[in-house]
């Protein structure tokens, strides 16, 4: 399948994405080549050992790849090539292991940070934020200092913040890893429900087979050298090398 | 009071300047404008007066002068406080080295002695200009010849006198009953009171003046000191007595002559603390005003030597590249006015003796001086003793270098 054909598809598409580290001693391979496409509402899981370059892959998709690394291949969102766009114009939301709520902003402040400026007017913005909080059953936390919240609450606020930014794809960098078992399952379904409800193509990086099982979508297995393994993505995911 | 340093200098500078072809023509030349023209040109100017800034009372006086000239002439005076007059000389030199022939950063310098000799020699001064200043003609040239001859160098109208200085000694009557009347008597006193006398380290001007006092008083023929220092053999012969005197004196000094105070205010502080029993000053009113300012106990008095002490005049001069020469002349003239001179002589303000001739003043002006209070520790003019003339600057250049070689190592 060619890039042009790929470009017609909705969702998140990676074509021959490869990341290397050009060092004085020679170019070191980090990950790839990876080609896959994630249709709206589907969760593709990327699994692999620590250090296989999964996080770099996500950074490449967001446009925040470490400047020391070099990425090649294309990233397409709903048919548009975003490979050369700066991160803030890509509309790719990302969640990390840590919630990374801004400690200097209140809960509402964090959510407002995510809400696009196109939503104008103090009242309208407030309404959107309150609606999101109410939907997560967290309206009472509007004015709270995020540092006073529990881990599970913070994780939910982080997701809401990302969703409010109206992303076109969602990247999950082990966002459940730090939560305890009980919370984990709850938050997991919270995330997947929202991702599906908003028809977001979602890429989940994890170590945990349970995460992958819950996600339900195809899997991509990466080996320690950053190569895509034979197990590969099923469903509408693409085989390595881009051959159908 | 003179403020300056006296290091290796005139001869070297002359030799160097000649050798390097530095002695360019003076930039200004004789001032020919009339006084009203100068006053008119000065209006609105800002004068940067580079003057030693180490004494609060003097700084206050300069600030007062600033208020006066602003009111009278619309001239703004900025006191650039120097730790050492040589800084300003260096600055003017640096400006000429950088080719800055006008718009210089120094408009007026408080100066005398070596620094004046150097600037005159180097043609770094504006003028002659003093002849056009109205108040210059009130100066007492007859009885105060040092107003025209600065350390044996003729002023030639390049600097305007504004104060007189005379070496005197301060002592605390609570601790000292008999004061020495001469340089040899001082040595005897020091031997009888080891560790209780010292003098500021040359090239501090008071320290250097103390050396001049010793040199002059012990010289077999003081007249040779008025001429430039001779060749090495003669220099050694004339100064031999100075060195043997100091060799005998130093072991009797504070800290055995290993260390010296940095300045005369430092030594005044030592007198107050009781670290030493005497201090030196160039200002006959220093003791009184220090007592009035709670800087010395009221038991302090002044003494001078029977055969006299070194005295001189201090001046203001204008650099060749001054940005506000007219304003500087207006300030220089005001400094010589009876009003400014009387305020300066008041021991409650500064206590610096006037350069003016009482005979040339009208009764009203004279009254300004006659009504001044006399401080409790100030010797009346008739008790100040004779004035010994400053030696030619070349002597001090070599003596200071030799002092460094012998005692500062």
């Amino acid at each position, binding site marked *: 399948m060619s890039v042009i054909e790929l470009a017609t598809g909705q969702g998140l598409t990676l074509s021959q994405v490869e990341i290397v580290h050009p060092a004085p001693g020679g170019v070191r391979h980090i990950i790839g080549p990876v080609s896959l496409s994630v249709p709206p509402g589907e969760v593709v899981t990327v699994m692999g050992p620590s250090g296989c370059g999964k996080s770099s892959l996500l950074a490449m998709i967001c*446009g925040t790849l470490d*400047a*020391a690394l070099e990425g090649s291949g294309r990233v397409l969102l709903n048919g548009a090539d975003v490979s050369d766009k*700066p991160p*803030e114009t*890509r509309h*790719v*939301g*990302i969640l*990390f292991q840590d919630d*990374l709520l801004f*400690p*200097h*902003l*209140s809960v*509402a*402040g964090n959510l*407002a*940070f*995510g809400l696009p*400026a196109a939503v104008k007017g103090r009242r309208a913005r*407030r309404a959107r*934020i309150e609606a999101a909080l109410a939907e997560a059953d967290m309206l009472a936390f509007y004015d709270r200092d995020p540092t006073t919240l529990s881990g599970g609450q913070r994780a939910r606020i982080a997701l809401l913040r990302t969703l409010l*930014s*109206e992303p076109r794809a969602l990247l999950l960098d082990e966002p459940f890893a730090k939560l305890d078992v009980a919370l984990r399952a709850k938050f997991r379904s919270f995330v997947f429900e929202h991702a599906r409800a908003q028809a977001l193509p979602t890429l989940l990086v994890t170590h945990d087979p349970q995460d992958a099982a819950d996600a339900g979508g195809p899997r991509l297995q990466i080996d320690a050298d950053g190569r895509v393994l034979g197990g590969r993505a099923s469903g509408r995911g693409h085989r390595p090398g881009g051959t159908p | 009071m003179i403020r300056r*340093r006296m290091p*290796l*200098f005139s001869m*070297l*500078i002359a030799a*160097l300047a000649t050798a*390097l072809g*530095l002695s360019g023509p003076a930039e200004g030349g004789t001032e020919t404008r009339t006084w009203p023209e100068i006053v008119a040109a000065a209006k609105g100017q800002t004068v940067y007066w580079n003057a030693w*800034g*180490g004494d*609060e009372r003097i700084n206050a006086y300069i600030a007062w002068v600033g208020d006066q000239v602003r009111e009278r002439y619309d001239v703004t005076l*900025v006191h650039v*406080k*120097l*730790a*050492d007059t*040589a800084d*300003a000389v*260096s600055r003017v*030199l640096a*400006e000429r080295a*950088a080719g800055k022939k006008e718009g210089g950063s120094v408009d007026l310098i408080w100066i005398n002695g070596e620094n004046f000799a150097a600037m005159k020699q180097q043609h770094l001064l504006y003028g002659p200009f003093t002849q056009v200043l109205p108040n210059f003609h009130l100066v007492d040239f007859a009885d105060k010849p040092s107003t025209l001859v600065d350390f044996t160098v003729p002023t030639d109208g390049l600097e305007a006198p504004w104060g007189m200085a005379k070496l005197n000694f301060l002592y605390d009557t609570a601790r000292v009953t008999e004061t020495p009347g001469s340089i040899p008597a001082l040595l005897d006193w020091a031997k009888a009171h080891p560790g209780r006398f010292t003098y500021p380290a040359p090239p501090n001007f008071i320290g250097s003046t103390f050396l001049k006092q010793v040199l002059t008083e012990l010289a077999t023929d003081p007249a040779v000191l008025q001429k430039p220092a001779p060749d090495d053999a003669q220099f050694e012969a004339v100064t031999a007595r100075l060195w043997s005197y100091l060799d005998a004196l130093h072991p009797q000094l504070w800290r055995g002559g290993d*260390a010296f*105070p940095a*300045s005369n*205010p430092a030594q*005044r502080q*030592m007198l107050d*603390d*009781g*670290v030493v029993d005497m201090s030196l000053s160039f200002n006959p009113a220093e003791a009184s005003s220090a007592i009035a*300012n709670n*800087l010395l106990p009221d038991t302090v008095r002044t003494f001078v030597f029977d055969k006299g002490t070194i005295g001189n005049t201090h001046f203001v001069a204008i650099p060749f590249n001054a940005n506000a020469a007219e304003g500087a002349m207006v300030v220089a003239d005001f400094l010589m006015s009876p009003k400014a001179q009387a305020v300066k002589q008041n021991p409650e303000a500064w206590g610096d003796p006037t350069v003016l001739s009482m005979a040339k003043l009208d009764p009203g002006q004279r009254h300004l001086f006659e009504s001044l209070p006399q401080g409790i520790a100030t010797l009346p003019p008739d008790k100040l003793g004779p004035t010994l003339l400053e030696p030619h600057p070349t002597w001090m250049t070599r003596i200071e270098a030799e002092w*460094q*070689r012998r005692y500062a190592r």
Partner: protein
Amino acid sequence: MRRRGLLSVLPALTLTLFLAPVIAGLIGTWLPAFGYLPALGGDSFTLAPWAMLAAQPGLGESLRLTLLSGFLATFLAFALTVGFLAACHGGRLVRAVRGLMAPLIALPHAAVALGLAFLIAPSGWLVRLVSPWATGWQLPPDIATVQDPNALALTLGLVVKEMPFLLLMTLAALEQVRADERLAVARSLGYGPVTAWLKAVLPAVYRQIRLPLYAVLAYALSVVDVALILAPLTPPPLAVQVLRWFNDPDLSMRFVAAAGACLQLLVVVAGIGLWRLGEILAERLGRAWIAGGSRGGNGRLARPLAAGLVQGLVALAAASLLALALWSVTERWRFPDALPASLGLETWARQAPHAASVAGTTLATGLLAAAIALLLVLGCLENEQRRGLTLSNRALWLLYVPLLVPQVAFLFGTQVLAIQTGIDATWLALVWSHLLFVLPYVFLTLGDSYRALDERYARTALCLGAHPNRVFWQVKLPMLLRPVLFALAVGFAVSVAQYLPTLFAGGGRFVTLTTEAVGLAAGGDRRVIGVYAFLQALLPLIAFAAALAVPKPLALARKLTVQPA
């Protein structure tokens, strides 16, 4: 990959701004040292200036004083820092002392020296407190406790000021090398607490504090203002002597001064080289000692000793400040009274107009220099992060250049340059000259905190659709508000303390609290010195207090919550 605007030229601009004057100044000093200074007729190269320098009376003694005080002060400050941390690691005292270090570093050297001079002089406060009832002294004893022939007073003054700097740098380094874990391992292997620290922590920490240590050594070997106050004068240490030669009205002395300034640089370079040799030697011996397996004692003796010494130094600094404050409100205080006979605000009232204008100049220069430095540093750090660059060790050395090269070794060359370009004695020259020394400190203060901020915050913000500028202003800056303000206060304190740069770039037209206080030190009225030195110490302290008093950023930011950028 994108966006290269103004930001990307900032590092080059910053380096140029603060290295160009140093390099030009060095050239402007080295050429005359070899006889080349066309403005003064020197147009051929000759060794005559060096010969004249060698012939100067007292040069050997000046060098001896410089080397003695420089090495002794640096070694003592280092030994005290290491001894204290080794003996008291993790204790309450370390935390308490740490809190005191910032204000101590903020105190200008000159103010501490002036206070110390009064404290320890034979007629000083310490003697007054015990006289005559304990000592029998009705008059001060004729002993040399300040301006002493071995410059021990200068050494003490330097230790009081440099120890806090080293201590703070070492404390920061301790976190980086995970000292607690190292210590726990060593203790579990049976090592005594002090020995464990010295064997397991010091070797790692030393690498981190090497540069600051060299900066301390370079400073101690070339200090001017403290030496003017505490060192002997006949002759003075080399740096002061060089300054005297430069100020000599005799033109020919300029050449000697230039050679002297170069000698000063060589002394510092050789000093650092010598220290490095000492390091190598100590490392050899240390390795054998570490391998020897001796476990050491329980540190019961070391703790009170080290704690006592450090507390003593802190107390000395505090007492110095107190002495200045007390003198400023004294009317009359004669020896041997323990306290002033009469107090009053007369000195303050009399000095108020002048002090206000001098403090104004100091404040304006300090704020301007610190603000410019902060802007440049933030710009460089932000650029570094956006472009994914990291500062190499070599670049860090560049940053230290103005701190390692003695001020007297290049400021004169810089001054000539300033005169030639017509900017001497202007605000521009003044602030610029301060910037040379403010910038490195601001960078060193802020750099670690800036880089330590989890970069994923910025990534998250970018992915939320925020432009990098918005990320900088609304995420990074508020999160780093405290370190940023702290760096600003450090920069301000560094500017306030500058003596030589103010003297040279200011051309006498700009008087700051430091030049005023040091100028008065030559013998002025202690009460007036008290006013200026106390003010000089007060300004940086206020700056630090203000930086620390800023409320938690959240309270400020809450108000901005809902509105977008």
